[in-house]
């Protein structure tokens, strides 16, 4: 009797916990959207921030920077992440050297992002003389994104049935061609899902960027697409504040009169971005998988 009662109470507690977590999430998302959605309009996403005195304006440069930085980071990490993942899944033999790589992956992926940012400050900002720049920011983001990508690729490849590899090798296809033409395509759904989720993380990252990409954005001329020009949005050597950094900056300085409004709008944009990444990761992964295994 007593044991049964305890069991009942425990079950209720577990339901409460689940309910609590769901409500926390609902409050978080609801609060952000409630605060932020009405701030977001066409001006907000297409205009640069207003002056410190007047406030107003939007976050267009920040929004652009967030995406541009994401693209740069992915350009750096995708090839290396693929290479590293393939190495770990296909070539690495058990032993000291492989353990060493595993340890590196583990340490790199658990480093605090502020420490990664400081490393970027030392190496990419100061030592190379690039200053606060998109490139420095992208490289710093790559440092903590890379181990994630390697893991994603390795896991996706390991999930491909061994029979696929065997079938290809038995046809006299070389190991490398087997990897490129048989294993990678079969692992693609997993890889895509993982990459998009990683993109979401990169998109929202701020701490690693404060001292690498900087906290300011120069006046940008969105008609100037010459990457070497200082006012060009594409110039990888210009400083750039992203949406996430912008939120932190206006909150911690609080000089702008409508700081909380802008922060709320930017947070809502960030959250929407992350949700889109999250949903598209699920959707695209499944879609690719279907495409691979069944009728077109």
């Amino acid at each position, binding site marked *: 009797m007593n*044991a*049964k009662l*305890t*069991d009942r109470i*425990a*079950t209720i507690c577990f339901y409460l*916990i*689940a309910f609590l*977590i*769901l409500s*926390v*999430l609902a409050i978080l998302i609801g*609060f952000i959207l409630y*605060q932020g959605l009405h701030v977001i309009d066409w001006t907000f996403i297409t205009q640069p921030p207003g002056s410190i005195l007047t406030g107003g304006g939007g976050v267009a440069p920040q929004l652009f920077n967030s995406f541009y930085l994401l693209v740069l980071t992915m350009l750096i990490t995708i090839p*290396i*992440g693929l*290479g*590293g993942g393939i*190495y770990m899944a*296909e*070539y*690495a033999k058990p032993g000291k050297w492989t353990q060493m*790589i595993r340890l*590196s992956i*583990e*340490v790199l992926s*658990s*480093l*605090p*992002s*502020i420490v*990664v940012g*400081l*490393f970027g*400050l*030392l*190496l990419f900002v100061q030592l190379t003389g690039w200053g606060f720049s998109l490139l420095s920011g992208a490289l710093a983001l790559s440092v903590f994104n*890379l*181990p994630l990508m390697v893991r994603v690729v390795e896991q996706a490849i390991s999930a491909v049935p061994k029979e696929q590899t065997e079938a290809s090798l038995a046809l006299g296809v*070389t190991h*490398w061609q087997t990897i*490129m033409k048989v294993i990678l395509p079969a692992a693609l759904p997993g890889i895509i899902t993982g990459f998009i989720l990683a993109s979401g993380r990169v*998109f*929202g*990252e*701020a*701490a690693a960027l*404060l*001292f690498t990409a900087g906290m300011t954005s120069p006046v940008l001329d969105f008609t100037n697409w010459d990457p070497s020009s200082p006012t060009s949005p594409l110039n990888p050597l210009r400083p750039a504040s992203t949406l*996430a*950094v912008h*939120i932190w900056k206006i*909150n911690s300085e609080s000089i702008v009169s409508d700081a909380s409004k802008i*922060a*709320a709008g930017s*947070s809502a944009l960030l*959250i929407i971005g*992350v949700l889109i*990444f*999250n949903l598209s990761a699920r959707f695209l992964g499944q879609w690719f998988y279907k495409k691979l295994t069944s009728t077109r």
Partner: protein
Amino acid sequence: MEQVTNLPNKKLEETSLAEELRSPAKKLIRIEQRGRIYTLLSAWILIITLFSLLFFITSKGIMPFIHGEITLQNFFSTHWGPTSAEPGGPFFGSINFILGSLMVTLLSALISAPLGIGAAIFMTEISPKFGRKILQPAIEILVGIPSVVYGFIGLTLIVPFIRNTTGSIGFSLLAGVIVLSVMILPTIVSMSVDTIQSIPQSLREGSYALGATRWQTISRLLVRTSLPGLMTGVILGMARAFGEALAVQMVIGNSPNLPFQLMKPISTLTSVITLNMGNTVQGTPYNSVLWSMALILLLMTLFFILLIRLMTQRGKQG
């Protein structure tokens, strides 16, 4: 190379195969080698990145002590006054921040561990269907929320709430703990789910067959068997909490107090670094001490990883 061709009845038509084998396909071999080198280089990049990071942060972090800008005694004290003109100053005592970081980490783990493990049990034992369909995606979304957004919510929701209910200024250790416990929850949940799921079904059936209730099975069998894995999840969460910068910095008030009162504003290592790195001049002791704090962050990360390795080894043995 032996050429044995004197078998009876062997009419060997000389095909191209033997010839072909004797002259290997150079192009194939070259592509093969190139691929191998490319992947090997990628793996090297990971190692090189890690070691250069360790090297740069470490050398920068111990520099002030080697150059005698700051004494260890000064660093490991509770007196923070980096611009103080008092005699004996400036003071770079960082103990308060180290304790601050430890305190928010421990307290948030205390809140998050039972919740996270509870949620994991809910998802695996109580209602797997609801867990997989609703709780799992919810947790995944929680992971994805950027830390500045957590900070912003803390700033606009939690801090005013604390201010209004207690009459303090709101920016406080408590606010930091609340924000962090939500942030590290997903880490603990997903690790715990993995561990509990890996327990063979037969063990559970054995327990139920003996007449144990679900709670008895969970508390006596599942939690105990999966303890190393659960602890690993908690430690991973703590590592995340210890290194979290912006969300914490935005809500804890950033006063150099000792972190022993929930309602008082405090500082952590990350918050001090975040706030001051941009405002101090390279090469000054004030700037250098921030790098030493970064080194401590790094060392703590390594320590957490060591703990996790020990845990997983215990898990394998036990």
